[in-house]
């Protein structure tokens, strides 16, 4: 057993993580904690929707356009549907869209980006396709894709994923290009590492930090895009309440019943704020270099 005194005398002290209570963590990373808590509350509301709110589709013409009251917390819309129930259920659509788009776009973009960064021929072809996708405004591309198929939640998700992919590809590609010049990648090549392993074990883990950060921004933008599409009437089908279509349906009665568009609007803003704060906090924590660059 070697003595505890290092042979060379240059040993770095054992890097034990200092004891860190949740309170210290919260004080050092307020954005992560606040953003995380906001998201936690919204996820909780979305999961518990059937138990904490009534039927979002129940029509009750007798109660149409009621202001917020003890019975209808957020009032009712022009068909007498409970805005509270609709808003709570709408959180589900936003979250499902946000998370699915972030995950799908990240995985697809990561795969393409890794190959682009590594193979010149793939790069030349794939990046021109990405340029093409980016040349079209994402909401127009999504509308075009949706009109080609039948409306539905998964179609909306796919339609938002495709315009988001180039952002992830570009990020991953740039990180891979800079990693390739790193001595440790050269060293791995000099050690005879095969290409698949080089990509998956040596390069991929080093791209994750900026990728996680970017995917939170994509989640936020996906939530907004979904609301926009639903507002325009090409998003999720009208029988699924989403914040976008609640606002769209309430807009003709804005002067009489402002609550039916204000409340889902506020929820939308809070959710996007939560996701963005979480992303900012993660960025500061995971990748201080990126924070300065962006």
């Amino acid at each position, binding site marked *: 057993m070697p003595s505890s005194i290092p042979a060379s005398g*240059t*040993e770095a002290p054992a890097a034990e993580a200092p004891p860190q209570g949740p309170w210290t963590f919260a004080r050092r990373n307020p954005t992560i904690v606040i953003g995380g808590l906001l998201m936690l509350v919204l996820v909780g509301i979305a999961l518990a929707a059937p138990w904490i709110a009534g039927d979002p589709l129940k029509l009750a013409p007798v109660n149409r356009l009621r202001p917020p009251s003890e019975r209808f917390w957020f009032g009712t819309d022009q068909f007498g549907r409970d805005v509270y129930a609709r808003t709570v259920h709408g959180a589900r659509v936003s979250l499902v869209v946000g998370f699915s788009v972030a995950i799908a776009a990240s995985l697809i973009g990561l795969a393409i980006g890794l190959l682009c960064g590594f193979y010149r021929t793939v790069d030349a072809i794939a990046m021109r396709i990405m340029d093409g996708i980016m040349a079209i405004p994402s909401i127009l591309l999504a509308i075009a894709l949706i009109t080609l198929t039948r409306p539905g939640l998964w179609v909306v998700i796919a339609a938002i994923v495709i315009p988001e992919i180039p952002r992830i590809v570009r990020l991953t590609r740039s990180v891979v290009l800079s990693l390739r010049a790193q001595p440790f990648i*050269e060293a791995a090549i000099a050690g005879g590492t*095969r290409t698949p392993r080089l990509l998956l074990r040596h390069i991929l883990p080093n791209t994750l930090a900026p990728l996680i950060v970017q995917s939170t921004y994509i989640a936020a933008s996906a939530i907004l895009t979904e609301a926009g599409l639903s507002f325009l009437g090409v998003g999720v089908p009208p029988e699924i309440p989403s914040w976008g279509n609640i606002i769209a349906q309430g807009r003709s009665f804005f002067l009489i019943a402002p609550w039916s568009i204000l409340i889902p609007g506020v929820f939308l803003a809070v959710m996007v704020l939560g996701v963005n704060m979480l992303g900012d906090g993660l960025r500061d924590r995971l990748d201080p270099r990126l924070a300065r660059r962006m």
Partner: protein
Amino acid sequence: MAGDAPLLEVRDLACHFFTLDGVVRAVDGVSLSLARGETLGIVGESGCGKSVTALSILRLIQKGAGRIVGGSVRFEGRELTTLSDEEIKELRGHRISMIFQEPMTSLNPVLTVGVQIAENVVRHTGAGWREAMDRAVEMLRLVRVPDPERRVHDYPHQLSGGMRQRVMIAIALSCDPQLLIADEPTTALDVTIQAQILELMVELKEKTGTAIMMITHDLGVVAETCQRVMVMYAGRKVEEAPVGELFANPLHPYTRGLMRARPRLDEDAEGSGRRPRLQEIPGIVPALNRPIAGCAFAPRCALATDRCRAERPELEERPGGHLVACFEAGKGVP
């Protein structure tokens, strides 16, 4: 295999880089040989082709940037320049290993050092991960990393520069290579750590019988570790000799210049308490992207004659196993 066949034989190796400014002849007809268990030093200024020579042997020159345009590299009787990509990858890190200059960045920050050593073992010996991790601990012990059972689970950022270079050596030696190419292994380390790493390399070489190709610009490193030295200038070999012979009797004006440019402690002849100023070699390494007429060193050489500027001197054999490429070799003040 024949007993006295050299382990590595490089003949007329030429590696050119194709740039917008023309063809850069980074290595232009270098020959060298290395016996089993021998240590060869390659010295020269930055940009003289030392590293490119080493990278060419393992075919690590980036495709598209540069290419081996001529010559042969025979290692253990196999011609490396014509091997398939898969065969050369099999050789790298297994029969021929390489240590780089930058220990701070040559390890992957997201993998523990144990995994990085074990990975090489798994790749080249077909051992299982458990076995390979045991081997990693053994290798860390061999390179004298204290407390290897615990260190094997450390990430590179938890280790100092000297420790990381030890880990690099552990990775390089983990599959018992026949040849270790060390590209300025101690340049990035401070002096005391340099001495420790060199001592370790010499000791491990004696223990394992690995031949070492030591690339450096530090003549001190050469004196301490090498048996034979080769001096390169502008992509060519200008002098080669056993280490004692080279230091006692440097023949090429460039080698002499390198020696004069080293700080020394013993030149206090007049007892004035002042050491003479270091003498630098005037001028800079010539651009390699256009053909050089005559001796490449002539523009910087005090002894250069018209012949030097017109005709390129070839390597000539001198007594004592000494090779030198200079018309004026050995003339002037040593």
